[in-house]
């Protein structure tokens, strides 16, 4: 799902405020524990999927199709969360699906972040025609709804997990570029940057040593907030059949398969993967919101 303008509150770093460090904040003690535990839990499940999953997620047995979860009549503890249309174990697929969502979500966010932050710094610091070119490009990119752009790219390059990562990165870098550029514009008027110029630092050195450390926190906060958006977009692409290709167990793909048998009441195939997506995205959003408030002292009082 594409997110309309204005949904994501962008972090704004007040110049002059003490440098905020994500690590230092984590020691402050008021980390929202529930979302953190959920995210760490999903990451744990993703890493140890091979050990945790009771069955093979890609191979099922046709004699065990459409078994309901164990607490429903007809279900058994052999398949705790039931089986799908090919007799594959839903729990195992959910566990391996966590791996897909984590890997795609994190790498895409990092890729978009590196691309967007770099271009944002270059655009903001160099200014003039470089700024014009990059910002016009950003405007154009933003004219297309992200989901539509991602679908278009996916339709051209064809589905694969790493293609999806690249597509999502190419789709979402503009958000970082906008925010980072805005911060660089005010940073470059600050004393320490002027002193660096006087001291004879090259433009490259200033951008790397003086500007980058001051925008990296905003990029991290934005990245946390983007994680949810990216995961939903990945799920949407998989749902539409241009995301992670089958038989890979992606949550969006499971939802798309589950849709077929929803009308006959096989709810577990649709409800459970969606619940996983929601939990993960909700946690990422809560954590991102907390980081943003931490970052911006003005917001903290609200």
């Amino acid at each position: 799902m594409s997110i309309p303008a204005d949904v994501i509150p962008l972090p704004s770093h007040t110049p002059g405020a003490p440098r905020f460090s994500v690590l230092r904040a984590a020691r402050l003690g008021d980390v929202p524990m529930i979302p953190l535990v959920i995210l760490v839990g999903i990451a744990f499940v993703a890493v140890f999927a091979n050990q945790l999953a009771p069955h093979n997620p890609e191979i099922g047995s046709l004699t065990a199709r459409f078994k309901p979860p164990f607490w429903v009549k007809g279900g058994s503890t052999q398949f705790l969360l039931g089986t799908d249309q090919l007799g594959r174990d839903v729990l195992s697929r959910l566990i391996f699906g966590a791996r897909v969502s984590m890997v795609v979500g994190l790498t895409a966010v990092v890729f978009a972040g590196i691309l967007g932050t770099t271009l944002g710094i270059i655009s903001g610091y160099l200014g003039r025609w470089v700024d014009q070119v990059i910002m016009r490009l950003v405007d154009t990119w933003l004219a297309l709804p992200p989901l539509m752009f991602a679908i278009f790219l996916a339709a051209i390059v064809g589905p694969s997990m790493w293609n999806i990562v690249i597509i999502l990165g190419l789709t979402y870098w503009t958000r970082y570029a906008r925010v980072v550029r805005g911060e660089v514009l005010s940073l470059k008027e600050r004393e320490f940057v002027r002193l660096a110029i006087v001291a004879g630092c090259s433009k490259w050195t200033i951008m790397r040593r003086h500007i980058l450390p001051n925008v990296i926190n905003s990029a991290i906060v934005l990245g946390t907030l983007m994680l949810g958006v990216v995961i939903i977009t990945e799920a949407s692409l998989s749902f539409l059949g241009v995301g992670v290709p089958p038989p890979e167990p992606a949550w969006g793909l499971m939802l798309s398969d589950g849709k077929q048998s929803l009308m006959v009441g096989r709810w577990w195939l649709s409800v459970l993967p969606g619940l996983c997506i929601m939990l993960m995205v909700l946690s990422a959003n809560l954590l991102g919101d907390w980081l943003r408030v931490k970052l911006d002292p003005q917001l903290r009082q609200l």
Partner: protein
Amino acid sequence: MKRYILRRIGYSLLSLLLLSVTIFFFVRVTGDPAVLLVEPGASRDDLEMIRRQFGLDQPLVVQYGGFIASLFRGDLGQSFYYRTPVFELYLSRLPHSLLLAVAAMLFSLVVGIPTGIIAAVRVNTWWDSAGKIFALLGLSMPSFWVGLIMILFFSVHLGWLPSSGSGTALHLVMPAIALGWVFAAAHMRLTRSSMLEVLGSEYVKLARLKGLPEALVIGKHAFKNALIPVLTLAGINLVIMVNVAVVVETVFAWPGIGRLLYEGITFRDFPIVQGVVILGGFMIVIVNLFIDILYAVIDPRIRLES
């Protein structure tokens, strides 16, 4: 004023140009466009013929010229599956998408504006928190999942609403809610912050000093002014709704543009995919231009600034 509008038009034209270059570039660079333009399963000779027919053996600049020229003629190619021009297909689906977008917009405003106002008037209370949770859920649940859950509940269990298709007002209810929820969250957040800003302003303080009843202060003085940014956002979002409904339309088999895009994907009908994306981008650029100009006409600060 004139200079401002001219510059805006210039930017928009530039955006359209860059958009067409981007789309053209990605199609050409990421693979063999002949493979995308020919029907799946075509022979090698067919591919060669397509290459010559579409001028794919020509230099890139010449190809781009041809691409633009056909765009200007409204020629977006022909669908493999439907055997009709993409533009015609698009126009035949557009009314359905608009209907869905308007319904989703109504839902998002009817839900978003009152909750936003309550959240602002009762800031930091239970109401405010409830509104925040509603918005957060809207952002965290994929719209297609919301759709599926509603189908499960209202169609499968209760049998109140039809699960797919179009035709009656009842068909519209669930797709509109599924599509509108995330926008309702956006409209709520903006209403809340805009209301908070207005409530702190001088004229609201004056209205209170005059001894007007609180309902009148909020309803007449604050609400009207707080509404302006929300309605602007709603205007832009309406166009965005038309263009991002693809998942929701797929879930509910709603015959709009999104469904057309989905068909383009599943039938490997590349002209449809490309056409829908180009037209969507153009629509958004033009509406943004329109809003910019409207702003300048209404607000003298903007037109004098330039």
